[in-house]
């Protein structure tokens, strides 16, 4: 699709940038940066910015810059001939006045049309094509080739490319429909042959045809509704044909997910648990003297065994969870200060487990404890007792020692 008829040499990004900046500088009126395109003659360089500079003061997009740059370079490489710039100017003006061009194709069309205009001398045929917002590359191709053929075939009269065969294409281009390239090419070739033989005749129908209103046949749609029964059958079969794979896929997906869910559920009940048991024996009550905190179970079971008479005046043994009620760090038991102190945010708890300093909002939790039949203390970590819920009065949460 590389259209070499654009006349100008291909620009590198750097050159485009340089050109764009030079223009922006000129438009802003500050330092005029000498452009990279020094080979451009003086007259086009001066005359060209006039139409382009107005939109360049506020370059809205890269497309703008690119279009401006390419248009300029096309002019410059066009030989600096005065008519070339003049004929190119009207091509760009509509694009500029349109504010923001809608698409790259549009810009490309404008640029290429300008180049084509120069290549074919004065060929206004390309200009309207560009002005009327060509919708696709096919359009551009058509325009470019038409102008080329015009230049080669017959000069001035040959510019009227739209031979009778072309008219539907032109009309459909107006109505905004896309035309296959092959069709375009066929028509173009036909046009070439026609224009070579009878060029003068062809001009008249070309100008008449675009007025033909094509979108009219849209109306008869209500009639189509009447044909329901026949269509219905066909459509339901089609729907079934399309829907069946989807249904199958979703069924398989759902089934797989179901199996996975079951497998996950099974995973929650392993055959072997390597964790320490939730219920375990810690020794006879005589191991724990009054006023002491046994810290030896912290590493293995995350509990302190406390024997104190400071909670409600009763001498009792209980198992305190070593998880800080603020954010879950493990406080350390400070024997000298007789308190649990958390290293993370400074929460402090009395030996009873009641919070008194720092941010911890509630006392440490107790776990279940009881005297087993063999005279050993048994801790049950599967239950917990919270002071703020009034659960510390539960006899399962402590063992009273007399």
């Amino acid at each position: 699709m590389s259209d070499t008829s654009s006349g100008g040499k291909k620009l590198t990004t750097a050159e485009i940038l340089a050109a764009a900046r030079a223009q922006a500088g000129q438009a802003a009126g500050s330092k005029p940066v000498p452009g990279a395109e020094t080979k451009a003659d003086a007259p086009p360089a001066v005359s060209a910015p006039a139409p382009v500079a107005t939109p360049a003061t506020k370059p809205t997009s890269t497309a703008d810059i690119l279009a401006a740059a390419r248009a300029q370079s096309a002019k410059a490489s066009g030989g600096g001939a005065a008519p070339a710039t003049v004929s190119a100017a009207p091509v760009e003006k509509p694009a500029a006045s349109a504010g923001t061009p809608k698409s790259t194709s549009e810009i490309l069309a404008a640029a290429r049309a300008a180049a084509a205009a120069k290549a074919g001398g004065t060929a206004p045929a390309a200009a309207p094509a560009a002005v009327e917002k060509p919708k696709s590359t096919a359009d551009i191709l058509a325009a470019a080739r038409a102008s080329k053929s015009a230049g080669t075939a017959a000069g001035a009269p040959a510019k009227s490319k739209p031979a009778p065969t072309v008219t539907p294409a032109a009309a459909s281009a107006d109505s905004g429909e896309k035309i296959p390239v092959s069709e375009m090419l066929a028509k173009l070739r036909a046009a070439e042959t026609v224009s070579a033989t009878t060029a003068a005749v062809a001009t008249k129908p070309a100008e008449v045809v675009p007025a033909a209103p094509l979108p009219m046949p849209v109306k008869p749609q209500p009639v189509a509704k009447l044909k329901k029964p026949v269509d219905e059958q066909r459509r339901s079969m089609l729907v079934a044909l399309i829907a069946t794979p989807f249904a199958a896929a979703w069924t398989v997906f759902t089934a797989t997910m179901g199996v996975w869910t079951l497998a996950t559920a099974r995973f929650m009940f392993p055959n072997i648990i390597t964790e320490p048991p939730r219920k375990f024996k810690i020794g006879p009550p005589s191991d724990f003297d009054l006023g002491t905190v046994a810290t030896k179970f912290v590493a293995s079971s995350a509990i302190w065994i406390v024997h104190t008479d400071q909670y409600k005046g009763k001498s009792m043994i209980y198992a305190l969870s070593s998880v800080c009620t603020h954010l879950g760090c493990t406080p350390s038991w400070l024997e000298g200060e007789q308190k649990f102190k958390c290293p993370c945010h400074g929460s402090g708890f009395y030996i009873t487990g009641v919070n008194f300093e720092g941010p911890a909002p509630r006392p440490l939790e107790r776990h279940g404890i009881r005297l087993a039949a063999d005279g050993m203390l048994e801790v049950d970590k599967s239950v917990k007792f919270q002071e703020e819920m009034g659960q510390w009065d539960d006899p399962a949460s402590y063992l009273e020692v007399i």
Partner: protein
Amino acid sequence: MSHHPDLTTSVIKALGWLYLILFAMNAAWTFRSYSRKADVRITGVWGIITALLGMFAIAHITGGSDPERFLIRMPEFVKSFIDLGADPVTYFCGSTLVFIAMIVLRKWWTQPTVAWIMLNLSILFLALSMTDYDFRQIVGKPDNVPIVSMLFIVGFFTWLFFRRAVDNDERIAAGKPLYEVDNGGQEKVLVWPDLVYTELICMVVLSAVLIAWGVALQAPLEEPAAASRTPNPSKAPWYFLGLQEMLVYYDPWMAGVVLPTVILGGLMALPYIDFNKKGNGYFTFNERKFAICTFMFGFLPLWISLIILGTFLRGPNWNFFGIYEPWDAHKLQVLNNVNLSEYFWLDWMTTLRIFEPGLPIAPAGADFGTQVWAIVTREGFGILLVVGYLFALPPVMATTIFRGMFMRMGFLRYMVFSNLVLFMACLPIKMVLRWAFNLKYIVAIPEWFFNI
């Protein structure tokens, strides 16, 4: 008394290199002063300072055969004086005062000479402090390298901003073109190459620095992690130390979930709240006073300075320690905290003899409704305060201090804005309440894990 020598030969040698860098910096500064044809006396003073620093460097590099007798070290009275101020109240109020002074005196301290003297003093302070064993333990930790460099980087960029802003404000006042315009700035620049190229360079440089850093400094690995073993002190990653400090004053769901979400959401909402069109693309302070002061208060005293606090001033058991104070795990700090409900029911109501003394408690075995009522009554005063703070204050502010803003922002934008400001203010408010009244929670409902 100390088990550790404050100074060793290797420390003295290393400090020698630091002084050598300081010497080179000041030599360049003296040359700058000379080449700009400044007053001869000023150039002379800088020359003398440079010479002194050179001698310091030589003394450090050549000396040190007997570190105990090395003289250039932080005087003890300075250390004990600085340690005296090591409590959260002094620190936070001090940093807020420094913040205010920074804004008020911006014309003075952004002068290059003043800023240079401040930079010199800060490096000198760092070098002298390194002669202290406990300070070295903190600064020398590989963990804390980013924090020390952050101090200087934040300082530099704050200075840069204020310098440009002060300059531009003077230009605007005088009706002259902005600094950015005078220095070839354009209203719009291209993404490529102007932005992407800069980003590429930054990427390359940062990668190089990170690789060099990773090779030079070993990762500070500790013992294997265990659920039941918490290091003491247990510090968050350095960038979260502000958050950790926040957790000291708030419940985890508040400081760990609600407030960070508000911070992130609030930062994202900033472009939609800001109606001030000025200051786009150029530095200015006078044209955006409120926005800059608010943002900087949230960033400098409430984030950066809390990171410094968490790094240098928090020790074992999250107690407060001076920067030269040994980390004693048994340091005793009285932190007995009391909930507002306890103040209200046990203190004030009893004193006023309005109700029977004691917190309202549902009798044992009461039904759910009674329990809820007891809890709500107990915390009623705190709930009222919080609701008033969040719902009554915005309209009040709209009619008083933020009147102009309310008019320009419209209802919805103003409500979002005022709530964000109130959420930001709640951290310093709670900190002050904790320090002044040992207040633990304004609303404390441990039964429902709901504490404010």
